[in-house]
């Protein structure tokens, strides 16, 4: 066991993957010499050599397209895009090629690659450095979208993603990289892609979240419990394929749900969860599913971040609204 934060857990998972599978290579901007802008690949170029860990030119479509070709030819590339706001030049590669080669070739060619993308706000960064556009990826059939929120899940999900026979977008919550530490087994273990994780059991209301917003979600849950409200907390973890059964089971029990994400409300992935809940358990619903989200505006610069990001209080208020009705 090792007490690690999320960034260290990811670094360890990549290290494990490189050492246990020759087909694994890493590529991305500045991931070699500097170990990436968030140091997630720190030390790996030194340890495995520049024939396994590649610094690339500044070209996101090139990175993903090259990783895609490598995956077809039998390797297990793990590409890093520096920030989610710089992932869009590769969007065409993801939706038109990475997500489709299995379909296009009826299983003959496949693209088992992982694209790691640091995402989310809260660090007062420059424009485009705080994006949370998981919804535009979760709408693409053919790629899986995974978002860990704990060091333990981070390691297990990343190893599962690298092993997965299909492409996985692995979204890393920037503001949690160094926020929490956890005891993590050093062994090779997987956390299944798919199932949600029930983090805390309760009977009055379910809070759904993923990634960085799990922090506020947990805090809200603790505050509500102090008022003797029994809160179920679910870390969705995998946006696609979505564990609808896990979501519905919880709401059938509690009858109340709040979905939390930092992306703008309109067309955010919270809509999918709310729509699913009302479809599958409308008659168990005691109140409308509440969405606590970012606003329908461009993620703001440092001075306005406080206006933008959903707060613990907003989550508490939303939960209360479900209980009042």
């Amino acid at each position, binding site marked *: 066991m090792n007490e690690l934060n999320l960034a260290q857990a990811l670094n360890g998972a990549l290290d494990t993957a490189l050492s246990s599978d020759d087909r694994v*290579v890493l590529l991305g901007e500045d991931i070699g010499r500097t170990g990436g802008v968030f140091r997630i690949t720190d030390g790996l170029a030194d340890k495995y050599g520049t*024939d396994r860990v*590649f610094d*690339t*030119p500044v*070209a996101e*479509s*090139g990175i993903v*397209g*090259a*990783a*895609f*070709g*490598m*995956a*077809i*030819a*039998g*390797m297990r590339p793990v590409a890093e895009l520096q920030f989610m706001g710089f992932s869009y*030049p590769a969007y*065409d*590669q993801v939706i*038109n*090629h990475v997500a489709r*080669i*299995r*379909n*296009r*070739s*009826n*299983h*003959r*060619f*496949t693209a088992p690659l992982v694209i790691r993308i640091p995402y989310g706000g809260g660090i007062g960064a420059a424009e485009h450095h705080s994006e949370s556009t998981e919804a535009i990826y979760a709408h693409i*059939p*053919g790629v*899986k979208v995974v978002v860990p929120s704990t060091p333990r899940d981070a390691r297990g999900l990343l190893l599962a993603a690298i092993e997965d*026979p*299909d492409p996985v977008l692995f979204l890393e919550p920037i503001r949690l990289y160094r926020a929490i530490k956890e005891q993590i087994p050093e062994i090779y273990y997987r956390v299944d892609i*798919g199932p949600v994780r029930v983090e805390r059991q309760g009977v009055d209301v379910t809070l759904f979240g993923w990634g960085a917003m799990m922090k506020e979600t947990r805090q809200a849950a603790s505050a509500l419990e102090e008022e003797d409200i029994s809160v179920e907390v679910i870390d969705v973890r995998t946006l696609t*394929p979505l564990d*609808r059964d896990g979501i519905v089971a919880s709401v059938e029990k509690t009858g109340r749900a709040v979905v939390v994400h930092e992306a703008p409300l309109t067309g955010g992935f919270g809509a999918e969860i709310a729509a*699913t809940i009302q*479809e*599958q358990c409308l008659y168990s619903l005691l109140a409308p599913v509440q969405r606590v989200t970012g606003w329908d505006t461009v993620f703001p610069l440092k001075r306005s971040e406080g206006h933008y990001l959903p707060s613990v209080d907003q989550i508490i208020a939303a939960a209360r609204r479900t209980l009042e009705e």
Partner: protein
Amino acid sequence: MFGLVNSDGSVRDRLPITVEDMRDLYADMVEARTYDEKSMAMQRQGRLATYAPFRGQEAAQIGAAAALHEDDWVVGTYRDAALNWRAGYPWRLLVLGRTGDERGGELPEGVNVLPPSITVGGHMIHAGGLAWAEKLQGSERIALTSFGDGATSEGDFHEAMNFAAVFATPTVFLCQNNGYAISYPTAEQTKSKTIAAKAEGYGMPGVRVDGNDVVGVLVAVREAADRARKGEGPSLIEAVTYRMGPHTTADDPTRYRDEAESRDWEDRDPLLRVRRLLEKAGGWTDEWQAELEKAASRVIEEAVEWAEDVPEPTFEQMMGRVFAERSRSPTQQPDGAADE
């Protein structure tokens, strides 16, 4: 512009191949053209979805494929059926794909040709990635990617060329400059004097070859492939050719080009050129031509019959190739249509 055989079948230089090999190349070109003509006819009868003919580009495609090893990677487009076929893609699967069936993309094991790319641009990068992986895995395999003059304007062309050069991947970039991107002439597509000249900006060799000369193309691609296999990195080849037909069966070229221009290229037809050469060498007769055409027709007819016999695709098949495991069952779609 590099080339070995002139339009009239005369030879500029000693040919590096035998008459027998020439006859084989010619036979392949006849077979490809037969497929092309058959496909045009079938599309008009409603038996195929939109079809993009390669008439006029047979030399570029057959010549390039003939320069490759059997297990090299080939990454081409909707217009590259002749290239793909010569590299191992069975006609029957090409036809099946064109009827609008994803199973046409299920290549036999051992054939390293990707299903044709419909978007222009993105696929060139894949060839860099494939070649890079082969290099890292210590194989001898290289990757050839084929694309049009229009595709050279996409940002992905640039990223593909740059990646391949930077990582010295064994990749051959083959541009079939056929004069047009749908209606837009190459002369407007870029102000570069040639497409081959673009190689310089990536520090790789660029060669301009007469794309209607099958031997010229064969030699140019073979040299590039040799360089790649020896670890000397990628090359760009511009094969100058002409799209004799419409862009696709949905296109009307009279809206944007002169009949005179098209007529002009008829004399430069890549098949005619080989035939003239063979005639001079005593390697061509009327009977042989008739035989070739008959054999080709039979082969293509068989492929068509096979493809048209493939049972209608099912709903389960459509849903069953998104992921390795069928991880989302249709019943998860709450409109109830899963009962269909």
